[in-house]
């Protein structure tokens, strides 16, 4: 639990948890409308402090990817359009980072497209 998880300690931990959970949602490991595990269990399985996990879950609630029902627990949103748009946004952010770094190597978009085709 503690050992199986690696985090970059120079970035707030809860932000990294937010990213991990988003990945679960994008990849449909957690399906739309599905109930998510309790804070405590999640915290344990991700090897972090329950308060940190709570902070991450509240952030996800703020973004609309999760919602809480007072007595029943927390659920993934059923709003597939929102999940899709957040997914795209995350992908675009990564692509932009990638393009910036490739530019430093002297590669423009067209060259990159060609190289992508070439790679297995």
């Amino acid at each position: 639990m503690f050992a199986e998880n690696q985090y970059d300690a120079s970035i707030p931990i809860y932000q990294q948890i937010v990213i991990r959970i988003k990945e679960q949602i994008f990849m449909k490991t957690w399906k739309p409308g599905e109930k998510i595990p309790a804070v405590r269990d999640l915290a344990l399985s991700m090897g972090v402090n329950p308060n940190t996990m709570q902070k991450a879950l509240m952030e996800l609630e703020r973004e609309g990817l999760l919602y809480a029902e007072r007595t029943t627990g927390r659920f993934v949103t059923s709003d597939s359009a929102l999940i899709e748009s957040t997914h795209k946004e995350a992908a675009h952010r990564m692509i932009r980072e990638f393009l910036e770094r490739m530019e430093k190597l002297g590669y423009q978009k067209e060259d990159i497209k060609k190289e992508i085709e070439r790679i297995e």
Partner: protein
Amino acid sequence: MENLICLEHVSKSYSKYPVLNDLSLTIGKGRIVGVLGPNGCGKTTLFKILAGLIHDYSGNITIEGHRPDIHTKSILSYLPEKTYFENETSIKTTISLFNDFYSDFDKEKALDMLNRFRLTPDMRLKSMSKGMQEKLQLILVMSRSAKVYLLDEPLSGVDPATRDTILDTILTNYNENATVILSTHLIYDVERIFDDVILMGYGHLIAADSADNIRAQSGKSLDEYFREVFKC
């Protein structure tokens, strides 16, 4: 967030050597707090004062509104740095002792944890490794249902696998009505467990903030931040 512990202008000297120098801070309920600082910076003295073992200090300390006294001792579970059991003592005896002394001691929980840590009641301290002794002491302290758990260097001198087991135990036992305060040198391995951090240097308070705030403001890990603050 309620404040469980309040310190106001606390000072303590040993023969004119100031170990704690005008320390003021608050610690909330349901938090896992790291007390970090170089050797000799006053961490153990602070813990002993909170545990009610040192009484001659100046300033105000309240734990759940009380000065350290019989009541606070009953809601505070202290794990000292040094083993205090005699070598001949068996694990079974230590459990009996704790069971007798503390009304909030959960014997079943202790036996269960012993099992999970692969210790048996008939083992004697003298034949146990340092790691095994650390695990035992942690089990005894965590089997009480206290409001404050004070763990003084629970991770020093144990191997990485034991460290992880100890951290898992702390996380598993988390309860939002209690607070765990632990001191360590091993910041790098352990820092993600902390909600809040108290950074002490030479008796002074250098920083007291949430771990994520320190990370966000400094752009560093707690380990890097510590190194920067204390580099010679």
